[in-house]
């Protein structure tokens, strides 16, 4: 076998056909000249890309997962050898010049990678695992596997071309993905459908603006909030970068998010957020609307197009900042005790989506095409900070999917997640329901006991004794209810009552506050 390859190889060498990359030297080839030749020669092969001024390449991780990684100088040395024979000009014995074979020193590799001529490499904003319906100058084009320079460069790493679906069939297919969930309101269902379509719109650059994070919230664990997001990942054949909130807080999380963004995969999931979630970095990323600087250890800072990424959070009661809640699309589902999700020949819904991934992707494409044919219209929806997204998706869910307005009920959810007292009150209401004490007048002491039994933390500083806890509950109730006697949280009504009670200790009547939790519909 080697005889044939060796013969052709030696023919190439004998005929001067071996590709030559001339590295810089003090014999007349500057770093810039060398970099221009090197990058021009390797650019057409779409193996090394430029991202935020840094050379990157596609590498396969252990589980077969593909990721973009920074090309470090020590790796670039040998990578170059794939593209040609490395030569350098040297002074010969007679004082003239001769071209001699060489290895690329790390210092040279560093200099080449830092040269401005790196701009000759093809740009890439990220990678996606399945075909994309791209908006190229207003015309839909399907990008299959391979590199596509349009819209800032996109690398499609695999996937099967989806079929063209009639729009009615596409709508039916997409509805199937949400039908088995018990959404708190029709608006939540609309936002769940929007969440399915949004990545397709963004990767195809139909929306070239910031889009909100998908925040999945459930009243109880095992309600299917993560499952719903998994269906989205399966539809796009993506494996999300999963990030756990570290004990050290969001500082470590920001670093993990940076690392995930550097990999180029579009989906980043922060699963099972408990309590307060506050990340200025994610907030900044979601509002940047363009490039953000991502810094990871040993790799320096890379400017990355933030619009390529989608954040997914799940929680049984997320509490976050006002800014982050304004950048979220909160989708609330309720647990359906004893409910059996629909079965498919392949197993459950997720297995069904995995098996028919091109079909469901085709359904998303059909919806995007229909929206494009209609002229990419938007409603005047202004109840969200990301108005371009809200207007477009509101139009799509109402006019193509024939669902409820996108943001119905959303302001209430935003208010709740950004108000720690309301988030706490929601947990209390859920716990009261569990204790079957709905409709009962509960004192601050009784609520403190319920909190202790259900391991519900009391936000804010207080000492760990009964009196302090009772006082803190009063403070939280005041914050949650304000001057009103009633607060409404996620379907629960919490009513404050004041009753006169005789105090044996003080030998007088006192005004005591009690709280009654009931279902809003009751």
């Amino acid at each position: 076998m080697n005889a044939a390859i060796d013969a052709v190889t030696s023919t190439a060498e004998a005929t001067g056909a071996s590709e030559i990359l001339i590295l810089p030297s003090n014999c007349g080839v500057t770093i810039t000249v060398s970099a221009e030749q090197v990058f021009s020669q390797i650019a057409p092969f779409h193996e090394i890309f430029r991202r935020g001024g840094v050379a990157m390449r596609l590498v396969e991780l252990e589980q077969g997962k593909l990721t973009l990684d920074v090309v470090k100088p020590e790796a670039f040395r040998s990578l170059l050898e794939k593209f040609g024979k490395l030569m350098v000009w040297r002074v010969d014995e007679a004082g003239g010049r001769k071209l001699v074979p060489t290895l690329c020193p790390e210092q040279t590799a560093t200099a080449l990678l830092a040269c401005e001529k790196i701009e000759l490499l093809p740009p890439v904003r990220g990678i996606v695992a399945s075909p994309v319906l791209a908006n190229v100058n207003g015309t839909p084009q399907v990008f299959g596997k391979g590199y596509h320079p349009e819209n800032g460069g996109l690398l499609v790493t695999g996937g099967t071309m989806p079929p063209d679906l009639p729009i009615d069939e596409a709508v039916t297919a997409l509805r199937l993905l949400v039908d088995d969930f018990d959404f708190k309101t029709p608006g939540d269902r609309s936002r769940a459908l929007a969440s399915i379509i949004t990545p397709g719109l963004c990767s195809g650059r139909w929306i070239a603006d910031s889009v909100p994070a998908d925040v999945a919230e459930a009243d109880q664990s095992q309600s299917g909030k993560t499952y719903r997001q998994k269906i989205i990942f399966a539809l796009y054949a993506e494996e999300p970068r999963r990030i756990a909130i570290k004990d050290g807080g969001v500082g470590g999380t920001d670093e993990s998010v940076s690392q995930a963004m550097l990999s180029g995969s579009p989906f980043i999931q922060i699963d099972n957020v408990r309590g307060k979630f506050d990340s200025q970095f994610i907030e900044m990323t979601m509002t940047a609307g363009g490039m953000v600087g991502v810094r990871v250890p040993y790799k320096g800072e890379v400017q990355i197009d933030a619009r390529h990424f989608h954040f997914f959070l799940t929680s049984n009661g997320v509490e976050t900042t006002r800014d982050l809640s304004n950048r979220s699309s909160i989708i609330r589902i309720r647990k359906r005790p004893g409910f059996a999700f629909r079965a498919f020949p392949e197993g459950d819904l997720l297995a069904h989506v995995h098996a028919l991934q091109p079909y469901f992707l085709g359904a998303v494409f059909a919806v995007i095409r229909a929206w494009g044919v209609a002229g990419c219209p938007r409603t005047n929806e202004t109840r969200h900070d990301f108005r371009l997204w809200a207007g477009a998706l509101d139009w799509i869910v109402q006019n193509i999917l024939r669902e409820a307005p996108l943001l119905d009920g959303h302001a209430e959810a935003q208010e709740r997640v950004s108000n720690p007292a309301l988030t706490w009150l929601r947990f209390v209401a859920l716990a009261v329901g569990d204790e079957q004490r709905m409709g009962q007048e509960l004192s601050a002491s009784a609520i403190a006991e319920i909190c202790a039994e259900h391991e519900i933390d009391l936000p804010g500083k207080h000492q760990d004794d009964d009196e302090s806890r009772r006082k803190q509950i009063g403070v939280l109730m005041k914050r949650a209810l304000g001057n009103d006697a009633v607060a409404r949280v996620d379907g629960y009504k919490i009513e404050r009552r004041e009753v006169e009670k005789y105090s044996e200790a003080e030998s007088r009547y006192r005004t005591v506050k009690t709280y009654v939790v009931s279902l809003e519909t009751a």
Partner: protein
Amino acid sequence: MISPDRYDAALREMPESGGGGCHVALLSVANLGALAGLSPEQISRDLRVHIHGKRHVSDREIRDAVSKAFRDFKRGALLTSSESHPHPAFCAERLLRGVLAAGDDADEADLWECSPIRLDWPPDQDAVRLLKLLYLAEDRLFIGARHDAGAVHIRSAADWCKRFEAGAPVPEHVIPNPLTGNSGETKDGKLSFRADSCVACFRFAVLEFDQTPEPLCDPRQPVTAWPREAQCQFWAGALTFKWPIAALIDSGGKSIHAWLVVNAADAADWTTQVEGELFARMLVPLGVDRACKNEARLSRMPGHFRIEKSRWQRVLYLNPNAGNEVKP
């Protein structure tokens, strides 16, 4: 740009699927649609609506036809891929010119002259001579017409020699690599006695230039067949550079087939080394027909007289020791 009416008419006249010629018509209609300036999506939708007949035509079949139409007309809309082409191992143009220069004005007589085996027999004895020199008596070979696939066409080299010596006509095609003699699955899952999976010894790769190598073409001119003189020069040059060529066969038409000794260990070795390295990074960039890359590739059988061309398929060069391992 052609009139959309022609496209519409072709759509209406689509033959039925399942033997009516629907598959071929898909590409014809897609070509007309592309020329009429329609989008790939539109053409796909139209085809889907107009397809009729017994056989189910898949979306993929439609998509392939439309993609091919757009690729051929270089309109580029349905971007199925900007395939990551394997990185060529060298500058193809420089190597081609270097090899041609080494072959400097060589013609068939020069190839004949440099053949280690003196080809001093008449062309009707080519088959027997080649079989005896390149194969073991027990090697099982397919020799037959293009679409012959039955077990009857797989015989031992000794058996074929006996038949030809007895005056049996020499069929036009041969698979240079010995076969198992058993049936195996084709890529379509059908059973055949000459599928890639039937190859027993992975000795030779068939090399052929079906047209002038791209690096030598003027991009403004249509691509044409590579003249025989140039092919002779190339193979003479390749021999100068000691390419392990066991045989050069005059196809009796326009081209010369080279049997390059590769001696792959097994099918996996063939896939990685011959297909993945030799063809993908070396031969295809040089202009060798990429369709030649499979192990059960047909070549022309020397000693067959092509009536339609009134020419013999002949051995031009024969070296049983090429690669030193051709005949154990």
